[in-house]
């Protein structure tokens, strides 16, 4: 995957770059409008992370330029503005998704994965990881040939883990992904523990390896080892 990160805040840009850089991924960055515009006109990316407020220009203009040139790059807007108008403007201009700052890197990764999945696997809606086979259209999970019945949230959690393979995903990130920003239970994430326990049990019972590991009481990690 080739990803372009257009973000003027250095700390954030570096974190994203570090999180996305892994085997098979190439990350490029742009810290201002001019650099960003040059890069999108020179190279093609699977996904562009686009900040709206940039030194030297507006991110929306970069989006317009992309669409005018019919470049097929996926675009995920990351903005501090949580207004419906901005969101609608971005999506109407052809952005694939809109994520409001601040966000968890795992959430960003999950959104980018979803965009790339939609772009790359045209027609095919299968997501395969070892023995786990997910039909994204029917929202069905199979381990080998054996169907596993997951609840809506368990299914979402499995996809989230798969998008963040090998990463430690914090409990906060999981809670916010599954229960939304409004989740206000910082003092008590026990319910996540029982949730994870359920999904592990279901997968293992269907003959799947136990890929989910607890990580130091801070979160969980979906890993092959």
């Amino acid at each position: 995957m080739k990803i372009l990160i257009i973000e003027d805040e250095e700390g954030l840009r570096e974190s994203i770059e570090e999180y996305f850089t892994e085997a098979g991924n190439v990350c490029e960055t742009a810290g201002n409008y001019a650099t960003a515009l040059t890069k999108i006109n020179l190279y093609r990316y699977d996904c562009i992370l686009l900040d709206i407020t940039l030194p030297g220009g507006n991110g929306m203009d970069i989006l317009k330029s992309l669409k005018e040139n019919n470049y097929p790059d996926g675009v995920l807007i990351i903005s501090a503005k949580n207004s419906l108008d901005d969101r609608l403007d971005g999506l109407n201009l052809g952005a694939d998704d809109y994520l409001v700052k601040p966000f968890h890197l795992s959430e960003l990764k999950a959104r980018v994965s979803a965009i790339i999945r939609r772009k790359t696997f045209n027609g095919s809606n299968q997501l395969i990881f070892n023995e786990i086979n997910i039909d994204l259209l029917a929202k069905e999970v199979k381990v080998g040939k054996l169907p596993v019945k997951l609840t809506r949230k368990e299914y979402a959690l499995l996809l989230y883990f798969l998008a963040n393979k090998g990463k430690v995903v914090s409990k906060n990130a999981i809670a916010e992904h599954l229960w939304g920003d409004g989740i206000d239970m910082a003092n008590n994430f026990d319910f996540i523990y029982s949730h994870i326990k359920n999904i592990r049990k279901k997968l293992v019972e269907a003959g799947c390896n136990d890929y989910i590991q607890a990580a130091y009481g801070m979160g969980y990690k979906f890993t092959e080892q």
Partner: protein
Amino acid sequence: MKLISRYNRVNLITTIVVMLITGAVYYQAISWILTRQKDKDLRDEEQEIFDYVTLNHHLPQTFQTTDEQITFTEASPATVNREFVDTTYFKQWDKDDGPHHRRHHYGRGKGEYEPGRGLITSVTVGDKYYKVLIVESTVETEDLIRLIFTITIGVILLLLLILVITNRLILKRLWQPFYDIMKELRLFNIADARKIPKLETTIDEFGELNDAVVDMADKAKHDYKDLKTFTENASHELLTPIAVINSKLDTLIQTENFSERQSKILNDLYGAVSRLNRLNQSLLLLVKIGNHLLHERKQMNLKLLVEDMIAQFEEIYQDRDIRLTYNLTNKEIYANAYLAEILLSNLLTNAIRHNFTGGRIIITLTENSLTVQNTGDETSLNDEKIFARFHKSSSSEGSGLGLTISKEICESFGFSLNYSFSERFHTFTVVF
């Protein structure tokens, strides 16, 4: 007391006092003039007597007319001082005074006493000295005075009546601008976009008052807007550093190999950052509600929305063994979907957070209201303070803005949000 009534009262009292004084002065003046007139008549009469005596050297025959009597009495010389006196005049009945009076002809007092004006003087005929008393009836004068006085009183009453009527009619109209301004002030809402209109009035005082009110309102609104802009900007500026901290934490935990102590610290950091973030989002949301920025509304089925929300929180309340029961009827509302969702989420989150393990939550949706009841503390909350910003129970981990936001959302929808406590249930009711 109304200004008009106070003004009327003062006006009335002054008018009556002034009129009475005028009446008295008037009365005195008229009686003085008329008395002088009478006195002049009496002097003429006296002169006539003197002329007669000088010419004829004997007293004139005493005669009577209807309004004049002259009597002569012998007196020792130089005992009479010439003077004018107020006296009585005995009026004899005339023979043809009519049947009404004739009855009295056979009685002793054939007449009646009337007020009179007399002149006591003296005349010397030959060597005899006489005291002369000339009396004229003043009954006509008195009648005249009475008539004048009646007319005066009549005029006073008429004037008062006219005053009262004018006050009623004209003052009310005159003060109308004042009442208009009062009405505008009462309707004034600092968060509202509506301005106080400029008043069309020809009266300077009201014009000035209106200008002052308009200026004050504009300034208040301007300051309020500044404050809101500040809050909004401050919250926006906070977003980026929070985003950086958040992403750095996410990056940090990837480095692995943490001791238990380190992971505890990281967990606390996560918790604090997420609280900071929620607090900031809540402030931004409050500003947005206050600025009416979330104005897109649509028709929604509240029942479906509540059911979705219950499903959304299912794992959380089940994890604490909270028994949630609900009874929902179909109810359509026309509102902002995003705000409606936040409202429901806040109410439900509160009901779960302030509950105890094994507690209960009851949600009831009727045509008129949505009620969320939960068990929890055994004591009632202070229903005046709970909706205030940053008011929260000591054990609460929330932002302290949840109920404030809920209340403001309800108000922006035209609903009301109330709290009550009975039979161990804390009850929040949204009345549509």
